[in-house]
């Protein structure tokens, strides 16, 4: 067997296999909106057949009657049936919208696609023209057209479509430009497909959502303008029924009868709303459609492992986490962290190691009280310096943050507010942790920048985040974190985004800062090299659980969990040249598919039937070493080597 197939992926999601139209109809909002529009359009189109009265027929015996059995929506001041007038009036309004939208698409679609995909001169010219057209006071042009073409609504709507097309053109261009940057478009070009083939097959499908959204929003705007023009009686001359004209009729008599305002107003509002919502639904559906298939959330026991008694937090540690579980909110909560426990002593560097989906970042965020909005701690204790912090509210937690616990994150650039100068950002934290302002805060900020070995800190303080390098940005982030002289620094993959030489410098800096200030570090990483470089202790996580805890030296020599051993072996660094890497078969199970027993059992070469039966307890192996493995003795005895 030469390849290691990953487990059979989830069953096909229906959303992705059906067309956009069907996906829209499948969503409840989409179905209602489409049904409303279809009924409205049919009713208006068939108005001559289904309208109860002639829209112009005056029933002088029933002037301004409210809704009644004879006149469902009442009559106007000339006794004309409002429902019939609405149905007939809708014809011109909806036709106008159609004319405008078709014009819009004819103009915007080809220009936008070409400008985005081809770029170059054509793009520059098209963009300039669009920019000019977008500043045109559209309504004046419409009025001029209506004036010249003697109140021809069709001409006005076509003009409106042309003028509106610059907006859609820009959107399509943007989408095409994004699509052009996608690697699959590059791949298609490399296959030797013609430009037209690339556009039709790979660029256009990605723009389709944007086109429908913009077109339906434009339809909503057009309806507003069209009814507005007829309200000003610039459209078909009276007594022809128009929606805007009906509002104008009602306006002239609203002192006597306010009801007449309701039917046309509500109809216009509902129709505009329907067009607008259609856009929203398409946006939501197309966002979902190509995202990962919604996971089937099976009901699952949140297996609390049957460890002997409830583990008590260690009191002599700076940070002690016990039995910490985190789950999403909602009716069917999804457990993301399952009874996580570890300790950090003062001044110690603990590496939290695992692959994506292991829960290491979630653990770090739980410790500093910054879980994502839809997640919460469901059980367990986080004890910082002797006092529990897991139940603190944000206000109380803020007293700890900065001064006692601080953090740095993975993407140094993203961690700095792009709108402020470096100096002001660092001073902001200084102000929060030291309570000083102005010059004093700035001076302290400069001092901090100097502490993180930034050359010429005054000059750097004046720059904006986008003007410095990634390594420099991470130094600034560290300066912000150490401003309050914290006892614990949470560092979430602090060097992953950096080049290896810059990584080495940042790790050196962290090490020296730690020694100067006796600061403990919780270092989240997936890189064993980083662990070997700075960590004294390692906590290995897999599928939301801690599987092994060990001193850093021991974990490389004698891993006490099959996952740790397999993960180390799957690094090319630990493979002899010319040999195959000992890859772990399969992949990390998602929280939906965590098994009842050992979560690594299906990928483990030491697995026995007992491994899958129930939750695996954490075993104390020796001084400071813990393993969540039933077969740890075999593993450490060295009998079952692959």
């Amino acid at each position, binding site marked *: 067997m*030469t*390849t*290691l*197939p*990953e487990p059979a*992926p989830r069953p*096909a*999601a229906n959303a*992705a*296999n059906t067309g956009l139209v069907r996906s829209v109809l499948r969503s409840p909002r989409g179905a209602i909106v489409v049904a409303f529009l279809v009924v409205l359009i049919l009713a208006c189109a068939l108005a001559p057949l289904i309208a109860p009265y002639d829209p112009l027929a005056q029933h002088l015996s029933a002037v301004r009657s409210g809704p009644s059995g004879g006149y469902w929506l009442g009559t106007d001041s000339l006794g004309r049936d409002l429902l019939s007038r609405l149905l007939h009036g809708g014809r011109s309004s909806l036709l106008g919208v159609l004319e405008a939208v078709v014009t819009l698409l004819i103009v915007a679609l080809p220009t936008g696609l070409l400008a985005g995909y081809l770029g170059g001169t054509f793009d520059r010219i098209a963009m300039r023209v669009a920019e000019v057209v977008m500043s045109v006071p559209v309504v004046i042009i419409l009025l001029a057209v209506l004036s010249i073409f003697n109140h021809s609504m069709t001409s006005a709507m076509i003009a409106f479509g042309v003028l509106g097309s610059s907006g859609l053109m820009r959107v399509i261009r943007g989408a095409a430009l994004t699509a052009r*940057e*996608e*690697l*699959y478009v*590059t*791949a298609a*070009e*490399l*296959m*030797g497909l013609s430009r037209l083939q690339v556009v039709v*097959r790979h660029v256009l*499908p*990605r723009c389709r959502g944007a086109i429908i959204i913009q077109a339906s929003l434009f339809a909503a705007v057009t309806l507003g303008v069209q009814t507005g023009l007829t309200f000003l009686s610039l459209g078909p001359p009276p007594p022809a029924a128009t929606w805007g004209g009906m509002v104008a009729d009602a306006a002239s008599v609203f002192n006597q009868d306010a009801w007449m305002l309701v039917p046309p107003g509500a109809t216009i509002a509902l129709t505009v709303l329907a067009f607008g919502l259609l856009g929203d639904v398409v946006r939501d559906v197309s966002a979902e459609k*190509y995202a990962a*298939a919604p996971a089937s959330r099976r009901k699952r026991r949140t297996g609390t492992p049957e460890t002997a008694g409830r583990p008590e937090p260690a009191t002599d540690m700076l940070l002690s986490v016990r039995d910490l579980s985190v789950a999403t909110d909602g009716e069917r909560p999804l457990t993301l962290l399952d009874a996580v426990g570890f300790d950090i002593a003062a001044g110690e560097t603990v590496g939290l190691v695992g*692959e994506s989906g292991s829960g290491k970042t979630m653990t770090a965020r739980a410790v500093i009280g910054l879980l994502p909005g839809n997640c919460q701690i469901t059980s367990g204790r986080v004890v910082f310096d002797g006092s529990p912090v897991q139940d603190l509210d944000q206000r109380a937690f803020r007293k700890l943050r900065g001064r006692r616990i601080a953090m740095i994150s993975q993407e140094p650039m993203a961690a700095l507010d792009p709108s402020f100068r470096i100096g002001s950002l660092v001073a902001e934290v200084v102000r929060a942790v030291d309570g000083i302002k102005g010059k004093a805060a700035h001076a302290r900020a400069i001092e901090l920048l100097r502490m993180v070995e930034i050359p010429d800190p005054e000059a750097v303080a004046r720059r904006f985040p986008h003007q410095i390098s990634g390594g420099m940005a991470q130094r600034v982030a560290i300066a912000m974190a150490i401003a309050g002289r914290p006892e614990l620094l949470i560092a979430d993959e602090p060097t992953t985004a950096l*080049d*290896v*030489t810059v990584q*080495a410098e940042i*790790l*050196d800096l962290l090490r020296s800062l730690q020694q100067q200030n006796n600061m403990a570090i919780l270092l989240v990483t997936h*890189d064993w*090299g*980083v662990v*070997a*470089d700075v960590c004294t202790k390692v906590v290995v996580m897999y599928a939301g659980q801690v599987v092994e805890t060990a001193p850093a*030296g021991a974990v*490389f*020599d004698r*891993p006490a969990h099959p996952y740790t*051993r397999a*993960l180390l*072996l*799957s*690094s*090319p*660094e*630990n*493979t*002899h*040249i010319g*040999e195959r*890497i*000992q*890859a*772990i078969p399969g*992949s*990390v199970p998602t929280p939906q598919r965590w098994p009842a027993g050992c979560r690594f059992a299906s990928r483990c070469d030491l697995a026995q039937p007992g491994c899958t039966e129930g939750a695996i307890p954490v075993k104390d192996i020796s001084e400071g070493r813990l393993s969540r493995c039933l077969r740890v003795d075999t593993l450490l005895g060295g009998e079952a080597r*692959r």
Partner: protein
Amino acid sequence: MKTDPLLQVERLCVDYPGRRRQRFRAVDSVDLTVAPGETLGVVGESGSGKSTIAKAILGIAPVTAGTVRFEGSELDPRRVRRRKPITDIQVVFQDPVSSLDPTKTVGYTVAEPLVARLRRERGGTGDVRRQVAEMLDRVGLPENAASRYPAQFSGGQRQRIAIARAFIVRPRLVVCDEAVSALDLSVQAQILNLLTDVQRELGVSYLFISHDLSVIEHVSDRVLVLYRGRVMETGSAASVVQSPQHPYTRVLLAAAPVHDPLRQRQRRELRASYRIEPRGAAPLGDSCPFAHRCRFAVDRCFQERPVLRPTGVDGAVACHRYGELPPDAEDDIPRESRSTTTEGSK
């Protein structure tokens, strides 16, 4: 020359428009060859121009000067949209999300290059479906994968799909541009194994680009070390990694942490011994691009551009002080017995 190279790049220069109408030279006079069935690893940090070289070979970068020969014939340096497609060169990109069209089924994606080639050659398209099924099976994807969409696959599986798309036309050369960099360690191992297995079966050559030295060392026969668009050192993977000649290569190797706290402590000391305060701004033009950060730099390094000088059997190094430098204080613990973990792996 032992065999005729499959790919031969000579004096390749790529310029990008930079600030204030200046041009930024991303690739500066790079020579490289890839023999049939060979893997050339290209390693460098961000800004080294490694991905630009890949783009130039694929015809999606603005080549300013130099030639790219494939199987002896010179490739049209024009952008790919204007030149004849070369089916024999395929590519696997880094980002497994962006490299697959989310609106197309996996089967369509994998079949597309094959169908495009068959159309060009006016051949029948009869057994495309069978070939796609075989290829999907070959890269370890389930049978029903062809009818599903990329969103339903994990990152590792998507990379398998991208590999299937590259190999379906039986290319001679596959450019892997950071093909495993976005993957988790255990998935990366699976994909690396897949790539080496397919290479062994089909005899394809790889131009393997990565920032990760351990990956490069594992897959490559020969290695090219790039810094700021220039080749600093080349040679067999073993010789470059075991006894680096260029000061930059040494710094790069010393910066990469090893999976062993003891050896890492030594490496850290080695790293410290190379570290100097940068002397002024990064030099441009006729100088060594690394001179300002080099512990061994002399005046000549700032004034004269070093040429590649042969070192051993097939190595070369671009350093004025080659031969004068003290040997690298290589780790004391021999590589072979660095940990019991790897011993157990034999």
